[in-house]
């Protein structure tokens, strides 16, 4: 039953988008954390998505089958940290500069909106499919 597989696909996307939202929340929350557990400033994180073909359709003839979404990993941003001149700060170096996290709050807000929209899209797909399935169950009545 193809329609039932839709739930698996959309659920994987919802899970992936929610993890992306989680990472965005962590980045925004720590936008000013000058020191983490290792004594270094917090570094912005980003999730990497990957498409995983569903098993049921993996026949040798057709390479393209409906694909679920998977979080391949969470990578740390390689952007240089922001530096601010603040000699009063206890974390300041010998020249009076403090290293702040390389979080770009504007980027994170855009990321958050995109994740939120995608999440909503997939919830809507699930709702629509649920209604279709319920109607299919009453076929002939």
């Amino acid at each position, binding site marked *: 039953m193809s329609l039932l597989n839709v739930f698996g*696909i959309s659920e994987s996307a919802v899970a992936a988008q929610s993890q992306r939202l989680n990472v965005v929340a962590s980045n925004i929350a720590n936008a000013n954390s000058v020191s983490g557990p290792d004594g270094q400033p917090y570094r912005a994180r980003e999730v990497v998505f990957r498409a995983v073909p569903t098993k049921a359709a993996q026949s040798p003839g057709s390479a393209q089958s409906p694909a679920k979404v998977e979080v391949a990993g969470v990578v740390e941003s390689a952007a240089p940290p922001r530096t601010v001149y603040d000699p009063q700060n206890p974390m300041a170096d010998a020249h009076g500069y403090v290293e702040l996290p390389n979080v770009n709050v504007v980027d994170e807000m855009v990321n958050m909106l995109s994740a939120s929209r995608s999440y909503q899209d997939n919830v809507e797909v699930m709702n629509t499919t649920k209604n279709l399935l319920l109607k299919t169950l009453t076929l002939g009545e």
Partner: protein
Amino acid sequence: MTNPLDNLLHFQGEALKLRGYRQELLAANIANADTPNYKAVDFDFAKALRAEAQGTGQSGAAAPGGAATGGKPQVQYRIPAQASLDGNSVEIDAARAQFAGNTVRYEAAMNTLSMQIKMMLSAIKG
């Protein structure tokens, strides 16, 4: 398939099956709207349904159109109107429109099938 009841319901049944499979593909496109290098997929519904209908016309033999891949139609990549930098070819607005369209068409096939069942029931009951 010589049973007249089967003959009557078969076409809409096949259409419903293909619509369901297309729904799955389109849901996967929406799910992967943010996945780098994902390519949007779809299939030619008219061609697939024609192949299914012809396939049964030859008493279950494989259709010449090449639809004999376990009942699954040949899936193809969609050509996007605008390319994106991350190699993803899903256009979310188009994908959602296709999804909504397919939903309505699925319901249409379901309604027709429902009518045919009712017609047969009234013929049986009199």
